């Protein structure tokens, strides 16, 4: 990702956009922070916040006409936060010491004509920038109409005190009546001239000229102006101040001979892009000052400030435990991912964040600006793989599992028995085959009897694990294998049981005609012996890869209804469904987060869940949620049992053994090719130890290999206490340890663990 792409991606996240109050304020006062500080009674901090953006805070804090109040999102929920009153209360508190670092003096001289607020702000800004500023006034004191403000609003001593800063910064004042004829001599003497239209001198010299909208230029020769009344003949103090400030910036740019217009689109009031969800915000009435004109008491001000919504977006974080976990938001994550990719030496701190995303796309669905978090993470994974920086442990198990599915142990492509061609091919995928091989056999037989006799069968992996892991070479390899087998089968229409497979076909093999198993089944008569749990209410869980497959979702619901199941929709369903924690290999790279994801999903309803993705069923069941699979009701015979939602999660070893057994059983039962029975030794493993093995991703095949290695070489240890053996073996980048003893027909397994570091030898 280059800088330009980063900027483009970042733009989609609006969390850092200004809240409505700030963007409506011509001076962009950070009202959200200010109000937060007032609410906490942190008056010094609140003062400093005003002082950052407000010129003469003691004056403007008392007389500002607060356009922010009208744009406040509280407006419809009890009334906009009374920012004007809050500012007044704040500047009535003692002013904290605020250090000002003066800018180095510049040689250029600037002229400011007029003593009104806009001229004073222009002069202040120019002085702060280090210019030598002379102000021309026809009046005997600075401030103009400010002196007409009632003392109760703006005490005269405060006005005097606030304007004192101009003298401190070295403002020169010339008392002189100015007219149009004096403009040319001024321009000869000064680098640029400001005409305050809110003063007699300035208005006379401008002769009715109107300054331009953004730059406040009056012509092209270095004359600028501002502070005029609005179209209704009213003076707005905050606009006077804004125009004086904006013109001062233009004067500086003019003097430095740089463009006047560039990069100023967000100056002054603008509509913000920030989205704030106010759906769940309760209305709260405004706090009115008990003392009327005297304004708020401290407590009243705090109470009013505490009504602030503190506008922000974070819509995605509300629905995604992963985005919430890494303590940022997509814009920040994009930057972290960008930086992570730029590291040559040092710690790739964002690897875990990149690899944890389930790529489920819910955040993008929710995001008001469609931030593409999944694409960002997937691209970052591809980059890590490409640069050989992908942590091997993140996806290795899943990739090996994919290799298993694409090996002779599972892979199969056959026409139906006694058929030479296939119009259709059933593609159950790895997860259903691993979770319930009986269902694959039953479904295949159902399809041949009820859909099309010439339905062939293809067992292999759709390459989803490689795709999710960002491994493009392995993805291409597995996709080619898939395409090759499909061609050998005579290019049948594929019937897919898994929505992740469907997603993969759509992405990588768009030329292949596919249909979901659920849509096919929905068009057939259901088996007469299907379980009809009439009256049972279940909450349907859509797999995340079905997010944009409404027809598939409809078909699953239609089947459930035909089975007599009452469907209840979860709050997050269909295009807003949530991942089960397996998607994007989240569970591989970050099991803890996958657990959190499941915790959230399983808490959404007390009802039993109905899944139609085998992996979702396994994940939900693993999290302790009673969950049945649609096929459990369609084919209730066999190992499903009378209470399908209670069927235990299939372990990792069982999933592999199920796949291998499925191929053997299919060859035997469908094609009459009985394989020789395997002579594998029995492993006796307690459920507790098995749970540990699954959690550590240790397979029975790893254990068998380790024991075989130990028994062959004699290299093993013996416990002096229990007589158990302990042996290790490193078949690939992992060393497995197994504690075992001999049993009559195999081995008792007491423990197994593994590590990735390699023992290079003793006496190093």
């Amino acid at each position, binding site marked *: 990702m280059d800088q330009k792409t980063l900027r483009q991606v970042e733009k989609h996240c609006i969390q850092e956009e200004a809240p409505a109050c700030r963007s409506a304020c011509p001076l962009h006062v950070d009202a959200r922070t200010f109000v937060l500080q007032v609410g906490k009674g942190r008056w010094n901090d609140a003062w400093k916040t005003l002082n950052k953006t407000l010129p003469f805070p003691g004056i403007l804090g008392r007389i500002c006409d607060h356009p922010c109040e009208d744009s406040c999102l509280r407006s419809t929920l009890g009334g906009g936060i009374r920012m004007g009153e809050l500012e007044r209360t704040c500047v009535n508190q003692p002013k904290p010491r605020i250090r000002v670092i003066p800018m180095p003096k510049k040689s250029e001289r600037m002229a400011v004509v007029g003593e009104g607020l806009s001229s004073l702000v222009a002069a202040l800004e120019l002085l702060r920038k280090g210019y030598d500023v002379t102000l021309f006034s026809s009046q005997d004191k600075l401030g103009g109409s400010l002196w007409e403000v009632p003392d109760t609003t703006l005490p005269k001593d405060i006005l005097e005190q606030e304007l004192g800063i101009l003298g401190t910064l070295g403002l020169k004042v010339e008392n002189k009546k100015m007219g149009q004829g004096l403009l040319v001599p001024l321009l000869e003497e000064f680098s640029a001239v400001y005409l305050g239209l809110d003063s007699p001198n300035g208005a006379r010299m401008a002769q009715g000229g109107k300054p331009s909208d953004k730059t406040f230029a009056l012509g092209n020769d270095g004359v600028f102006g501002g502070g005029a009344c609005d179209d209704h003949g009213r003076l707005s103090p905050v606009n006077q101040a804004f125009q004086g400030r904006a013109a001062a910036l233009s004067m500086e740019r003019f003097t430095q001979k740089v463009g006047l217009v560039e990069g100023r689109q967000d100056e002054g009031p603008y509509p913000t892009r920030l989205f704030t969800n106010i759906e769940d915000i309760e209305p709260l009435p405004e706090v009115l000052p008990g003392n009327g004109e005297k304004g708020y008491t401290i407590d009243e001000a705090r109470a009013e400030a505490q009504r602030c919504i503190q506008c922000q977006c974070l819509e995605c974080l509300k629905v995604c435990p992963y985005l919430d976990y890494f303590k940022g938001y997509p814009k920040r994550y994009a930057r972290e991912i960008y930086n992570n990719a730029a590291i040559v030496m040092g710690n790739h701190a964002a690897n875990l964040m990149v690899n944890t995303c389930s790529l489920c796309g819910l955040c993008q669905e929710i995001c008001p600006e469609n931030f593409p978090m999944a694409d960002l993470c997937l691209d970052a994974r591809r980059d890590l793989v490409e640069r050989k920086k992908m942590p091997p442990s993140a996806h290795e198990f899943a990739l090996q599992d994919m290799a298993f599915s694409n090996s002779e142990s599972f892979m199969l492509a056959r026409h139906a028995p006694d058929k030479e061609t296939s119009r259709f091919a059933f593609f159950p995928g790895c997860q259903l085959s691993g979770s319930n091989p009986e269902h694959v056999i039953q479904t295949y037989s159902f399809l041949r009897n009820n859909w099309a006799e010439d339905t062939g069968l293809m067992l292999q992996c759709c390459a989803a694990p490689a795709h999710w892991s960002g491994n493009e070479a392995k993805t291409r390899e597995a996709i080619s294998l898939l395409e090759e087998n499909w061609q050998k089968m005579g290019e049948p229409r594929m019937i897919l049981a898994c929505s992740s497979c469907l997603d993969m076909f759509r992405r990588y093999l768009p030329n292949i005609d596919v249909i979901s198993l659920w849509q096919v089944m929905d068009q057939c008569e259901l088996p007469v012996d299907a379980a009809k749990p009439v009256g049972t209410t279940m909450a349907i869980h859509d797999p995340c890869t079905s997010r944009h497959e409404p027809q598939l979702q409809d078909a699953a619901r239609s089947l459930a209804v035909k089975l007599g199941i009452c469907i209840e929709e979860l709050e997050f369903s269909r295009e807003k469904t949530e991942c089960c924690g397996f998607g994007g290999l989240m569970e591989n790279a970050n099991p803890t987060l996958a657990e959190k994801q499941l915790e959230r999903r399983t808490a959404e309803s007390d009802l039993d869940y109905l899944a139609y993705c085998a992996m979702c069923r396994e994940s939900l069941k693993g999290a302790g949620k009673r969950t049945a699979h649609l096929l459990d009701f369609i084919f209730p015979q066999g190992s499903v049992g009378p209470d399908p939602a209670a069927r235990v999660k299939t372990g990792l070893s069982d999933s592999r053994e199920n796949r291998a057994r499925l191929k053997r059983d299919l060859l035997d039962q469908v094609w009459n090719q009985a394989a020789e029975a395997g002579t594998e030794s029995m492993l006796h493993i307690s459920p507790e130890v098995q749970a540990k093995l699954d959690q550590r991703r240790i397979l029975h095949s790893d254990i068998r290999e380790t024991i075989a290695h130990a028994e062959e070489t004699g290299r093993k240890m*013996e416990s002096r206490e229990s007589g158990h053996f302990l042996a290790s073996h490193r078949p690939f980048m992992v060393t497995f340890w197994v504690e075992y003893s001999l049993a009559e027909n195999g081995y008792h397994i007491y423990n197994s663990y593994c590590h990735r*570091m390699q023992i290079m030898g003793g006496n190093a």
Partner: protein
Amino acid sequence: MITNLGIEENKEWKCLSCDALLKLDKVRIDYMNGSFTVELPCCPECGMVLVPEEIALGKMLEVEKLLEDK
């Protein structure tokens, strides 16, 4: 650099083929581009090394993760 993993002398396991009790010794362990020398229980005869479970799932796992993110 020798890293002390804080392992105590192991009295439980003996090397079966050498019939010898394991003794702590220096062992080199490698992963990715990292190499460390640690003290682990070894057979004094044939050098077979024991990685105890708590080390494999504790300190070793931590270091593996660090090295993977280098």
